[in-house]
């Protein structure tokens, strides 16, 4: 009961009101939800303050966030247990996080769009939501021509059956636009805010504009479920159907490649059908009037393939419908909260870096499911660009972040490769070799999906050599698998299919390597990560990866076949790696030193697509490179590299690196930080951070660059924080850039939650279980804190 000041509140739902309306009292959330309804606010973004456990429980049950408890009776622990996000002794301690502060902390991304322009399409990608099994993006609020609402289901592809046609992701049915009769109700300006903390996207017309407000999320708690709530006060009706054919926007040419079916029994459903897959959506919606506004709650479940899957989808839909919007949102938010708790990275002193890393983490943490398998595409499920194909981006750039934060998701990525080992065997056989070779690009089947020609910017039809020659991916897949094992300690995978994968791919290398008369071993005619030099001999990166791979595989095969292990070790020892003993530099490939000595600064500012600017032939004849190649070996296998070579290779190769690959700047940043040059590193980190947020590629509308996100995470964790796993021990050797005051990192290492806190004078490490760790080379027992005293690190 209010004891005064009632006129200060726009909405009051008190005991009297609850009794009149038949609302159950606390701890039931009904009164809070009724108040939220009247205030037209979303619980997930609404602060609840209470001083009683019943009130905190009600807040939690209603999905409110944050919940602040005022501790008047010294029972803070009980309040926390009940679900309080924070406990204060006085309300004055509560500093409300306003929108701008949230944005500065990188927790929200807000964009305004004036019309259906380019910024709208880029924002569609930035605001794409996924749970790793389905992805959703676009504008459902209006039916503006040229914009699309896009749903994608992992693993559902079409095409590729005709010569020259590319297998590509199959767009699923769309959620029906919320306008009616085809007439746009798009406000003159729309404001969209993505709350990264809760994985919720809100869309509102600008103040003084009428139109539809929406809130949507893809449930992390129930994979495949899309939830949308819309409100309007313009008196217009909602569309009768909740599904419609895909609205593909700029990709509309694709619509010829699939058919669309729909029906209403027993549940409203629609399906897109390609020659390879079927994506079915089942959906329901319900409208009601709330506080003078009309509200629509719409649920949709997407599944690929088969009646059985549709039945499962219907069950999930019915269950979700029973729970209702608020409960679904509450559980979704709890899932996000858990993911952030394990993985968040806080960067104090630099809002730009903070926003970049949180945005990257958001998409990394939702790009792969925690069950089944995950072929994480170069653009994830955020767009149709790159056809949904899986590259080494998944294994080497994305997976390490998940292995160290969300191991179950990393495991599903490993599973994708394990289940495609037979296809890799077939590829090796087709090329006249033993063992297994993974394709440069793959889709669902695991067969090679790399395009073979392209009409390039010189107007010529040119062959694409990556599929035939960029073979290092087989070693990359193994690196990713063993990195997963290193971080998680999950050795079971190496006793099963993982063992076969490591050995079969090693067998491929053993049959692929040429041993010369002098006994030196070579890999001829390959392509390294620097794709400006297409077919080269003895690419240092490939050879070093293969050498390492053969040695690791020899350990696994030893028990069964000592001779094979011996042979692999001998091959590994004989493989040339291009190291020049005098300069301590690795030659990128045989003959690289003889190419035209060209520095990128002589041509243009980085980043630049030097192949586009200069043409393929010119860059092939010069020392200009696309991205780390020798440096990539330093990044992945630091212990395989000669002492002193990182510095020498950075000095030589960085001025020659165009950074023309979206994979490049973050990895260079990581290496510079490791080499003790963190301020230089930060300049490249900034480029990677802006890549999608500022659409530096001009292609973000086609989907987000997940590998760049993975690279950003690696730059922070492996680079600036200097984290590495060496023989089961977590090493931490940080080097922070001047602009950063403090860095906090959440990790999961071998089943133990780890918290790192780093500033310029101090490193603290804590864990929720036993941890083998070294900080600046000193063995520590957690919790531990090291401080810098006269330039040397000492345990406090």
């Amino acid at each position, binding site marked *: 009961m209010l004891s005064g000041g009632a006129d200060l509140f726009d909405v009051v739902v008190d005991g009297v009101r609850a009794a009149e309306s038949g609302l159950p009292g606390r701890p039931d959330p009904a009164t809070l939800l009724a108040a939220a309804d009247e205030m037209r606010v979303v619980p997930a973004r609404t602060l609840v303050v209470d001083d009683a456990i019943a009130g905190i429980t009600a807040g939690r049950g209603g999905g409110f966030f944050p919940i602040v408890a005022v501790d008047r009776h010294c029972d803070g622990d009980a309040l926390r247990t009940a679900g309080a996000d924070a406990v204060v002794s006085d309300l004055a301690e509560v500093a409300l996080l306003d929108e701008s502060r949230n944005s500065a902390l990188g927790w929200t991304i807000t964009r305004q769009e004036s019309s259906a*322009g*380019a910024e709208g*399409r880029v924002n569609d990608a930035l605001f794409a939501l996924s749970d790793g099994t389905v992805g959703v993006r676009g504008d459902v609020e209006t039916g503006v021509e*040229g914009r699309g609402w896009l749903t994608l289901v992992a693993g559902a592809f079409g095409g590729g059956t005709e010569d020259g046609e590319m297998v590509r992701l199959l767009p699923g049915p769309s959620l029906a636009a919320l306008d009616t009769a085809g007439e746009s109700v798009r406000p003159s300006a729309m404001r969209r805010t993505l709350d990264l903390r809760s994985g919720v996207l809100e869309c509102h017309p600008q103040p003084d504009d009428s139109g539809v407000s929406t809130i949507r999320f893809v449930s992390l708690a129930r994979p495949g479920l899309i939830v949308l709530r819309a409100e309007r006060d313009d008196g217009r009706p909602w569309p009768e159907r909740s599904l419609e054919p895909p609205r593909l*926007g*700029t*990709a509309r040419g694709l619509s010829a490649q699939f058919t669309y079916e729909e029906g209403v029994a027993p549940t409203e459903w629609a399906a897109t059908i390609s020659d390879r897959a079927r994506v079915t959506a089942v959906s329901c919606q319900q409208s009601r009037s709330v506080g003078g506004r009309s509200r629509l709650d719409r649920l949709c479940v997407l599944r690929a393939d088969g009646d059985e899957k549709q039945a499962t989808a219907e069950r999930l839909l019915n269950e979700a419908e029973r729970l209702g919007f608020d409960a679904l949102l509450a559980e979704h938010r709890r899932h996000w909260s858990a993911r952030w708790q394990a993985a968040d990275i806080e960067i104090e002193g630099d809002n730009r870096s903070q926003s970049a890393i949180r945005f990257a983490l958001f998409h990394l943490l939702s790009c792969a499911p925690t069950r089944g398998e995950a072929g994480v595409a*170069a653009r994830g499920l955020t767009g149709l*660009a*790159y*056809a949904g*194909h899986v*590259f080494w981006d998944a294994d080497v750039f994305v997976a390490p972040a998940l292995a160290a934060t969300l191991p179950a998701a990393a495991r599903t990525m490993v599973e994708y490769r394990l289940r495609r080992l037979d296809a890799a065997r077939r590829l090796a056989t087709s090329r006249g070799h033993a063992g297994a070779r993974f394709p440069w690009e793959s889709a669902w089947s695991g067969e090679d999906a*790399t*395009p073979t*020609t*392209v*009409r*390039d*910017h*010189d*107007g010529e039809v*040119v062959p*694409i050599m*990556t599929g035939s020659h960029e073979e290092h991916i087989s070693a990359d897949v193994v690196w990713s698998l063993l990195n997963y094992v290193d971080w998680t300690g999950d050795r079971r995978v190496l006793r099963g299919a993982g063992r076969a994968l490591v050995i079969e791919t090693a067998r491929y290398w053993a049959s692929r390597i040429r041993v010369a008369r002098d006994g030196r071993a070579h890999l001829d005619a390959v392509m390294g990560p620097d*794709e400006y030099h297409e077919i080269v001999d003895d690419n240092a990166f490939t050879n070093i990866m293969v050498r390492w791979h053969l040695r690791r595989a020899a350990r696994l095969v030893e028990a069964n076949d000592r001779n094979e292990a011996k042979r692999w070790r001998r091959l590994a020892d004989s493989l040339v790696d291009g190291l020049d003993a005098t300069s301590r530099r690795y030659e990128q490939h045989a003959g690289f030193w003889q190419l035209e000595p060209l520095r990128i600064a002589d041509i*243009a500012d980085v*980043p*630049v*697509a030097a*192949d*586009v*600017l200069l*043409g393929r032939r010119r860059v092939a004849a010069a020392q200009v490179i696309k991205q780390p190649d020798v440096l990539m070996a330093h990044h992945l296998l630091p212990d395989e590299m000669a002492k002193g070579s990182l510095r020498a290779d950075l000095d030589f190769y960085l001025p020659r690196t165009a*950074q*023309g*690959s*979206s*994979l490049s700047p973050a990895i260079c940043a990581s290496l510079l930080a490791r080499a003790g040059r963190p301020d230089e590193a930060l300049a490249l980190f900034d480029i990677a951070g802006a*890549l999608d947020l500022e659409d*530096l*590629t*001009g*292609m973000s*509308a*086609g989907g987000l660059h997940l590998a760049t996100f993975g690279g950003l995470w690696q730059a922070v964790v492996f680079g600036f924080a200097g984290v590495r796993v060496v023989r089961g021990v977590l090493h931490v050797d940080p080097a922070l850039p001047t602009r950063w005051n403090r860095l906090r990192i959440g990790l999961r290492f071998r089943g133990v939650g780890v918290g790192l806190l780093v500033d310029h004078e101090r490193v603290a490490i804590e864990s929720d279980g036993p941890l083998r760790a070294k900080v600046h080379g000193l063995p520590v027992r957690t919790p531990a804190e090291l401080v810098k005293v006269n330039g040397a690190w000492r345990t406090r």
Partner: protein
Amino acid sequence: MKQVLAAIDESPVAAHVLDAATTMARTLGAEPRALHVREGKEEAPVALARRAGVAIDVVEGDPIERIVERSDHHAVRVVALGMRREHRPRPDTGHVASAVMSRAKKPVLLIPPGVRLPTAERFGRVLIPLEGSAQTSAAISAELRAFHREGVAVTVLHVMSLDTAPKFWDQPGHAVQTWGAEFRARWCDQPGTEFRLRRGDVVPVILETAAMEGADLIALGWSQTMSHNRARVVRGVVGQAEIPVLLTPTDG
């Protein structure tokens, strides 16, 4: 009916200007009309127009002022002018043409000496080079739609050069498609247009592409000031093209 206004004088290119204006008028469903600004007692332009069956207005005064003044008339859709190239190798469009193209609020069709005009009655294919900026794309979009409406084949060209090279180009097999789709969506979302992506020095590539594509007209949007990068392209194309060039001002 809208007019394509051919500003003609006694120069040898006048006959071509009249021909090109007539072709443009047929292409756009407009009527050709000639204008001669008399500076002396010349009669040839009037005779030329009469022979061609094109109505001509003769006025007196400063040619630049009179042509710009007439171009303001609501009926005038396009102004056609002849160019001079007397100071090669440095291209010079001629005093009057330069001034009019910089001041007229309507599209200006520039006819080079020795122009190759289409053998058909209408323009068959127009090449529209786009740099990828809101201003120039907006300038040309009305023309693009008009050509499309009138059944003229349109090839849109973007040339990647030092100024416009992308920062990132991951996998050529995908990037060409992805980048091209987004470029089109942003700058020329007109169904039915051909799109070409090329690399190199902008002006030579435009001229080569026009020849390769069999274009009989090049249309460019521009800001009407000679100081910007785009103006360098305009100056180069206008100075070297052998087919008519349609310049559309950004705020026209």
